[in-house]
């Protein structure tokens, strides 16, 4: 029998673990641990005005021109997945980071860290895909670097790309600019990239294949900016998914964000895979979607422009920026109740059962 008095006195809970002394995989998840790492390790070391904005891209002024710079490393496994590969992803990811600042992407650098033993044919396919994606996006790869490391020191090939772009006059976007009353627009259904990768990695097969949404979004952004240059902010919800991107905006702008669950589209196959694996699509990565925060008066018009673009056909208005619940993202469930959409500490883990 249960002796409650005794068991309460002997509560079986662990002591809190000591301060983080090791880098964990979760530090790279795009969630809270990643944010901690940036705040505690990188920001104090490099602090400067451009970095401190913590945007997807830095904006620097050179002789009156506003230049956007961004860098991203790609370590995706498997290298080839339905809907894309590490080569095209390395272009789309960096182009999108520039585009989220409203910049016109112009140049890329590409650095390859290659594991000894990688078949040359694989490398050539990756390089060819990277080149095609760059051509399609209208950016040139203007410099690069190659390192080969011993077998086991990398996983096939890692790619870093740095992107440079030009920000047109009058465009001033930042995640700290969301204001109460603004509307939140999302360019399409979420979770496809993360599920495509997971399905490929784990050998899961679905009735209809889930493909990554990997795509360059700068032309979509261009169409949106034609409607108004006064878009407050844009984000591409990659690692950590929609939830992390919106939580960051809520935090940086010191506002609340209220979402309408019904308006957030998730394809049936993605929903099914998430149900089965115990994952929440709000935390699953996207590589071809964007969130835009726009003033209410122009929201419909911007939404219309998105829906007229191939990458925004299924764009929806998914929520509003609020004065209350500062720093929190909340969501109206289909039952009319409200819940918090939290930022995850680390990676989402498949549930035991």
């Amino acid at each position, binding site marked *: *029998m*249960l*002796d*409650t008095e*005794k*068991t*309460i006195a*002997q*509560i*079986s*809970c*662990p*002591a*809190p*673990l*000591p301060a983080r002394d*090791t*880098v*964990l*995989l*979760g530090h790279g998840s795009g969630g*809270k*641990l990643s944010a*901690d790492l940036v705040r505690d390790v990188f920001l104090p070391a490099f602090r400067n005005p451009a970095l401190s904005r913590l945007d997807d891209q830095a904006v620097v002024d050179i002789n009156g021109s506003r230049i956007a710079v961004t860098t991203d490393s790609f370590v995706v496994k498997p290298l080839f997945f339905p809907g894309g590969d590490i080569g095209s992803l390395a272009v789309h990811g960096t182009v999108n980071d520039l585009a989220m600042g409203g910049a016109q992407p112009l140049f890329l650098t590409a650095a390859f860290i290659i594991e000894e033993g990688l078949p040359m044919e694989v490398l050539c396919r990756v390089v060819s895909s990277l080149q095609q994606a760059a051509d399609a996006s209208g950016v040139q790869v203007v410099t690069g670097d190659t390192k080969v490391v011993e077998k086991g020191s990398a996983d096939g090939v890692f790619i870093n790309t740095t992107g440079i772009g030009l920000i047109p006059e009058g465009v001033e976007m930042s995640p700290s600019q969301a204001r109460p009353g603004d509307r939140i627009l999302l360019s399409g259904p979420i979770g496809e990239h993360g599920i495509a990768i997971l399905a490929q990695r*784990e*050998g*899961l*097969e*679905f*009735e*209809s294949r889930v493909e990554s949404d990997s795509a360059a979004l700068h032309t979509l952004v261009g169409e949106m900016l034609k409607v108004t240059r006064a878009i407050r902010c844009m984000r591409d919800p990659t690692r950590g998914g929609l939830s992390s991107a919106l939580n960051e905006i809520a935090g940086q702008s010191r506002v609340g964000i209220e979402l309408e669950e019904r308006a957030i589209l998730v394809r*049936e*196959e993605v*929903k*099914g*895979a998430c*149900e*089965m*694996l*115990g994952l929440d699509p709000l935390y699953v990565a996207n590589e071809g979607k964007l969130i835009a925060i726009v003033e209410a008066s122009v929201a419909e018009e911007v939404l219309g422009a998105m829906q007229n673009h191939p990458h925004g056909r299924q764009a929806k208005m998914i929520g509003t920026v609020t004065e209350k*619940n500062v720093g*929190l993202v*909340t969501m109206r*469930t*289909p*039952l*009319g*109740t*409200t*819940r*918090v959409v*939290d930022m*995850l*500490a*680390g990676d989402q*883990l*498949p*549930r*035991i*059962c």
Partner: protein
Amino acid sequence: MISAIRFFTQFLSSAATISLQLGKSAMKYIDEYRDERIAKALAREIAECITRPWVLMEICGGQTHTIMRYGLDELLPSQIELVHGPGCPVCVTPLETIDKAIALALRPDVTLVSYGDMLRVPGSNSDLFRAKAQGADVRLAYSPLEAVKIARANPDRKIVFLAIGFETTAPANAMTAWQAKREGLTNFSMLVSHVLVPPAIRALLASRENRVQGFIAPGHVCTVMGYQEYESLVREFAVPIVVGGFEPVDILEAVLMLVKQLECGKAQVENQYVRSVTYPGNQPAQEIMKKVFEIADQKWRGIGVIPRSGLRLRAEYATYDANKNFDLELISADEPAECISAQVLQGLRKPTDCPAFAIRCTPENPLGAPMVSAEGACAAYYHYRRHAVAS
């Protein structure tokens, strides 16, 4: 806990590929159970038939998460108090099992295979994620049979599967031992920590502090075990038990069935989750469990030892017992007095009653397992309900 489809896939996944039929038709059994009109109609019906306060407990952590995620407590009349039960397999796995798993994982000759959400659960000094960062070979598995596959492919390494959970994971875990024996694997072991639901309900009801007047039994456990086991509890303690599913409409319907019984003084076992649960349960699943495991006393983290509430490997499978195959030193734990998970797991207190909740205890720095696991009650409150707490 475990959905029927996943239960099947665990059995079918001995091949390299899990093939799923997840087209539009598969979601048919989900969307209508999240329907606003049906949910609100059920909530209204509950409000119409309730005349006084009742304390109800949902056993399973998956049900707790549905309640929090959909804000079902907001829809229910204030007379209903929902308290959350011990049905989170990660939360009740004893500290020493996690310490043993970490110690095993850190051995250079061992590959430890575990379900994903065990990796972040803190042991005494570390967790499996940290062990992995220190070089331990820790693999995350969707199906326990993957552990057998790893053992087959790596004859020079010792493969240990961390076999935890309720009756939901027990058949697949049993299948894993059975398969290893059939293949004659000599480099495979299981660190078993299995718990059973009915003895836990019995222990809760027998406690002097018990406040629970009706239970929602865990639908996935009952998918495997059926619900005949609950008849004796209902008779002995005169408490209604309704087997419930995991979607909002399931939970609300189960609450309605409990309230109807309570209001007219009945105490019966009823089945709300008819689309998945039958009275006798899944016979082949029960048979493989019986073949491989036997009932034993079991320690529950936060609660203590409950007689005959767990499973251990039978003598015929002793060669697969990691406790016997490795010299596992027992480490006792330093526990923070602040954590109230014992009371939370027994439904005596709510996560928000804890002074450390969301302040000194968060998913990044958990004081106790219920804040870590995807099914833990504290994590459910933290993830979904902080706005309510703040206001």
